[in-house]
């Protein structure tokens, strides 16, 4: 048995026939080919799968596609304007906030939600906000620097 889900993904209307048990991340990766959103765990902790639904960061591995019916979804692929990176993406590049790149999409999406709520987060606030995003490569040092810089450029 399948159901139809409709949503807007990165500004485009999409419709898909899926099993009810389909997760949002499966819809994005398997049905829509948006493989920038990653899966790094099965207990909703690593945050590699973070996307925005209706403007808020969520874990797309812990959300049924059906729950997002009618929603607005933004993934990492929807941030840049052509070759022009979003200021947060640019800050990650500038400050070496990524190494293997696997956690990066979730980190960037999470960071943007933080800055949308708190335009000038402190280092402590950044570190606490990242509770739901695990990185094994960077030791977080440069991610924190990048988010600090990204917040400044998003504000300015």
């Amino acid at each position, binding site marked *: *048995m399948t*159901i139809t889900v409709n949503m807007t993904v990165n500004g485009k209307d999409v419709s898909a026939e899926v*099993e*009810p*048990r389909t*997760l949002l991340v499966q819809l994005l990766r398997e049905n829509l080919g948006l493989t920038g959103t990653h899966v790094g765990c*099965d*207990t*909703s*902790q690593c*945050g590699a799968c*973070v996307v925005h639904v209706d403007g*808020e*960061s*969520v*874990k797309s*591995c*812990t*959300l*049924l596609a*059906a*729950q997002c*019916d009618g929603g607005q979804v933004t993934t990492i692929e929807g941030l840049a304007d052509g070759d022009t990176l979003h200021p947060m993406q640019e800050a990650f590049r500038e400050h070496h906030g990524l190494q293997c790149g696997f956690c990066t999409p979730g980190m960037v999406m*999470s960071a943007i*939600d*933080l800055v949308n*709520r708190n335009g000038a987060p402190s280092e402590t606030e950044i570190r606490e*906000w990242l*509770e*739901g*995003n695990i990185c094994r490569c960077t030791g977080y040092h440069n991610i924190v620097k990048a988010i600090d810089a990204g917040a400044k450029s998003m504000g300015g």
Partner: protein
Amino acid sequence: MYEFEYHRPSSVAEAAELVSKADDGALMAGGQTLIPTLKQRLASPSDVVDLGAIAELKGIRVEGDAVVVGAGTPHAAVAGSAEVQGAIPALAALAEAIGDPQVRNKGTLGGSIANNDPAADYPAAVLGLGATVTTNQREIAADDFFTGMFETALTDGEIVTAVRFPKPQRAGYAKFPNPASRYAIVGVLVAETSGGVRVAVTGAGSCVFRASEMEQALAGSFSAEALDGISVPADDLNNDLHASAAYRAHLVSVMAKRAVAAAQ
């Protein structure tokens, strides 16, 4: 996940009917516990009834001397609510300490207390603040709501619609998180209420409980020092990889003092 049928009702009545008609229906609020459980194949409901589209379950309002939080309100909304921050800052702080930002954006008050995970934060707030749980069938006092590990007074088809938190004179929450999962190893909410001092402990035992000896001590003097030498017995506390029962008992005292110090 096993296969299931999915329903997305727009009213509580419709949801109650759907879940009662299902062979083995599961109510899903934010899904932040249920979906991981389904992914691990630890549950196999025939039907999942998603409460996420029910407008009447959402929202926060101040009613007289109480804050009423709709069961479908996400933790982030509670944490960020000016009403909650003004009336019961400890409740906002507790909501801010749940999970991570993404979990707080989806997870809900109703989902949390209906699940009654022994390491969840919200049960401490509901019990510690002496809240009243409203369902589609009745009102349940907090002292009667949490009945055991993952067990509540809710009956089949009964849906939490809101929780009414009376404003305390002051309250504080202190949490010692599990270093891995960040659930509460121990969370203590202390509140000075019109009905007396209440101390609710989550994480430490199989179910949230009140620490009566601490309540009596704080009734005499609402100060951290009043708790000196008072501890909960370790016998009934949880014992796992991260914290022995003895360590948990110790942490209950430490967190209780910190909650008192933080109370406002």
